[in-house]
């Protein structure tokens, strides 16, 4: 049982999206989910249910979308969400060393949040930066051609 509700503003934004004719289901869902994640840092259970109520899309289908895309998380996350690309080009460019450097420095694994709530680290699939790997995404910002030193330097900038 959840007692929470979406903020009036997000609700209105989603309602407006769902009133748009000819907006493909996929776009409606993705835009709404991005907006929710931006607001809460993750996709809360109640938010999926409200999204389903507003759009008429089955709750389980909303849940299916959320679980399909690594960008969405159903658990509360750290202040900064850090994604490392794990797809082939970035892998060959040395993503393992990057990830090791990060894990050693912060003492948590991929998919976990640092105890101080500062970062959540996770893997994602190709981000279209294949020629500039290894690549990483922090709060929507991409960083490329990482090295173990460079990645730690960048992360230090995020409080």
């Amino acid at each position: 049982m959840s007692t929470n509700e979406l903020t009036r503003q997000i609700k209105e934004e989603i309602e407006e999206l769902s009133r748009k004719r000819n907006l493909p289901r996929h776009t409606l869902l993705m835009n709404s989910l991005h907006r929710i994640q931006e607001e809460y840092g993750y996709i809360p259970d109640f938010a999926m249910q409200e999204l389903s109520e507003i759009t008429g899309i089955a709750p389980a289908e909303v849940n299916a979308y959320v679980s399909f895309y690594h960008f969405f998380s159903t658990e509360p996350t750290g202040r900064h969400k850090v994604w490392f690309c794990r797809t082939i080009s970035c892998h060959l460019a040395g993503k393992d060393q990057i990830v090791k450097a990060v894990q050693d420095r912060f003492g948590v694994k991929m998919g976990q949040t640092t105890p101080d709530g500062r970062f959540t680290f996770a893997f994602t699939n190709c981000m279209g930066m294949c020629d500039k790997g290894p690549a990483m995404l922090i709060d929507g910002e991409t960083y490329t051609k990482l090295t173990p030193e460079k990645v730690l330097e960048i992360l230090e900038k995020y409080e």
Partner: protein
Amino acid sequence: MAEMVNVRINGIETEVEKGTTILQLARKLNIYVPTLCAHPDLRQAGACRMCVVEVKGMRTLQSACSFPITSEMDIFTTTAKVRKVRRDILALLLKNHVGECQTCKRNGNCELQRLAAEFGLHDYLYGKRTERRYSVDDTGYAIVRDPDKCINCKRCVRTCSDIQAVGVLGTLYRGADTKVTTFMEKNIAETLCVNCGQCINRCPTGALTEKDATSAVWEALEDPNKHVVIQTAPAPRAAIGELFGLPAGTSMTKKMNTALRLMGFDRIFDTNTSADLTIMEEGTELLIKLKKVYIEGMSKDEAGLPGITSCSPGWIKWIEQFYPEYLPKLSTAKSPQQMFGALVKTYYAQKMGIDPANIVSVSLMPCTAKKFECERPEMRDSGYKDVDYVLTTRELGAMIKEAGIDLPNLPESEFDSPLGLGSGAGLIFGATGGVAEAAARTIWYIVTGENVPMKNLEVVPLRGFEGVKIATLPKIEKTAPGWEFMKGIVPKIAVAHGLANAKKLMDMLKAGELEDVFCIEVMACPGGCLGGGGQPQPTSPEIREARMKAIYEEDRHLPYRQSHENPYVHQLYEEFLGEPMGELSHKLLHTHYCRRSRRM
């Protein structure tokens, strides 16, 4: 004229309408193509690839169920490549399938098991998992999920969202991690599941089954201190034969009575008796609403029009969750099952001089949601649990077999009295539109003093499988004394079956499009009770059609065709209940509803 395309399939030249799928073409020509995720009631999923075929000129194999024929082509369904790929798919499914056929409810009626036999898989080509990955979810009232037997065909997902507009089943994750489960992997009891069991009917395996009541019923039957009565609903009689190899639509009413006696039931009663009571109560209630509008000048909305039927417990939970603002329009009349239950432990117990505490009240239903209904706290008006156990058609079939009874070859026998006589009107409750038709027969008679002006009393516009029906009856020209205000009115009745259709109807109501409709009948299951979630698997439009025919055929031959003609109903009111909507009727035969949260 539709555009035609020339095709060849296994060398046979033929012509098809453009857009026909390869599977449809194959079926038409009696060419067998194995399928798993495809289902005649559901949109295509293309999820399992069991149905692959070879198309000349195409490098990869194509899924026959989701490949529309748009240009000339050459199709092969039996090549070595096809055979090997299908075997591979099956072997991979078996690898991750944890279950023992011998102890599975679907043993002998499982599509996965049948395919494994057909393909001669005498070995696990890719090994076999033996450890369970998941636990069984039996938290619900009606349905049990065993995800280790699930093959991710998504039939249940499509059923729950597309047919039932509930949408609590879906897929999570992707690739090898993909699994079909509930919203946020909650226990089924915590979800919005309405217990309809439609997902069970379409599941090809034993991953979805009903909650078992057979052990409890056996125990009661074996207890010499218990007086065990059973009421049987109309829909199971038209379907139980399927479990014994008989064609769909074989009416088994009287043979079933014999089987139940052999099993040890003390009395065998007919739910149609209380269906007739439902009509008397619900009809009277509707007429009172009409009086409020046409005599007292109340608005239709205030008076609770259109009246909405309340005999389908899956529908009740659905409306309580999704359209609670319309609960005041719902008839307060209990379903026939629950009216019966309330009478068994009061009227019947008194009449027979049996302590109600020693009565075990069992019902045979086509429905899994009835298992939930009998557990509702409101359903104890007799002072006891009005209905103790609900058996589905499938469960009774299994019990009859377990008892070593050869149902098809039994002699026929009658129901017991005093609750063993129902009219044809009570009987047709089993088909979509049937409650509305039964009500129309009786209400027309009360208002005009004459029978409904339809050949054979058959209100044809209310019949058939169209998702939403809005039927207009003839204008009321002549009225019985006291009903003059109904003169000149053209009654309209709306009917929906399957909850996605009910949703359409509710949205029409909301939009003010049903202004002149008097009453709305909703049944949660496609086809009505005859397509209930406790009926034999498989299901398809043809199977449901055959069951429907059997029900209407039986109606035609019954001595009483209208609820108000049933002498037992009169006797019940005279001896015990008083009058429809009277004090005792109100206590025993009516109920109330609750607004339920939509949040899981």
